[in-house]
């Protein structure tokens, strides 16, 4: 019968007799561990993210076309501009010219022959239908005015 086994008298090993791990195990383990680490969620790409994949020249052209198109659309949607004078003229066209002259001469507004002469100088055909004065008569009236008024012509 052998002596009882005494652990303290048994040569202590640093670890149990177990086979070594495969060659290079500890060289590769860090890489394998890193590969298992959870990844941070990628941010959700915006709807226009596909544009980033296009060449820069393409993106510039598209941006320019978009800008010009927006100008064109803005212009088209706003419609042609109605000059105030033309609008006013269209409104006055509906009024008989005789009434216009009577109004101007009888109203509190001081419209004199010189005013009409100025109009005729600016637009000779404007007053020819209701004004009975000749061109020479109109010129004489204009010349009689103070010199500062001549600046209006």
């Amino acid at each position, binding site marked *: 019968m052998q002596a009882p086994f005494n652990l303290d008298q048994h040569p202590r090993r640093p670890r149990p007799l177990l086979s070594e791990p495969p060659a290079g195990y500890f060289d590769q383990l860090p890489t394998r561990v*890193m590969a298992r680490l959870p990844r941070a969620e990628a941010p959700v790409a915006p709807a226009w993210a596909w544009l980033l994949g296009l060449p820069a020249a393409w993106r510039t052209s598209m941006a320019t076309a978009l800008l010009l198109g927006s100008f064109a659309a803005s212009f088209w949607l706003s419609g042609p501009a109605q000059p105030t004078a033309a609008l006013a003229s269209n409104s006055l066209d509906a009024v008989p010219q005789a009434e216009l002259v009577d109004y101007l001469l009888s109203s509190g507004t001081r419209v004199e022959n010189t005013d009409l002469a100025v109009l005729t100088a600016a637009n000779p055909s404007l007053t020819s239908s209701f004004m009975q004065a000749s061109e020479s008569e109109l010129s004489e009236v204009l010349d009689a005015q103070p010199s500062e008024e001549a600046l209006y012509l």
Partner: protein
Amino acid sequence: MEDHEILLKFQDPASRNVAFNQLVRKYQSKVYWHVRKMVVDHDDADDLTQDVFVKVWKHLENFRQDAALFTWIYRIATNECLSFLSSKRRKFLLPLTDVGAELAAKIEADPAVAGDEIELKLQKAILRLPDKQRLVFNLRYYDEMPYEQMAEITGTSVGALKASYHHAVKKVEEYVTQSTNS
């Protein structure tokens, strides 16, 4: 790299991966053998070792440094081993001794033990111990870990650990004596 340097670099997202790589390289061998002594099989030890470091990665940011870094890592490794062995028993509905027998069979098949009868009997005796007692035995006998550090890892008092180790030694000696004389 010192532990405080690793922890400092880990806090910076720019250097986190580098710091963690250093941590793994520093402690991989200790963690592996701590796990391997418990589960015996290399493939199981490999899986568990990786699991341990993945958990370290997840929780290192919240590590309060109220214990040494390696003590904290050892605690995670210990819990992973005990959980693994516990789930193994539940999975196969095996009583304590049968799992021990399975591990003993793996020891017998290990070429490193071949020809060393006493060592084989010693290993089989250790494997017969309850998991937690076997853990205490491994930490004290093979790692020569101070009881105070062991208490931090296991959450057990120093007195209870000393008693546990004393009883474990007795059981091992009795088993080796009986198997030698039979």
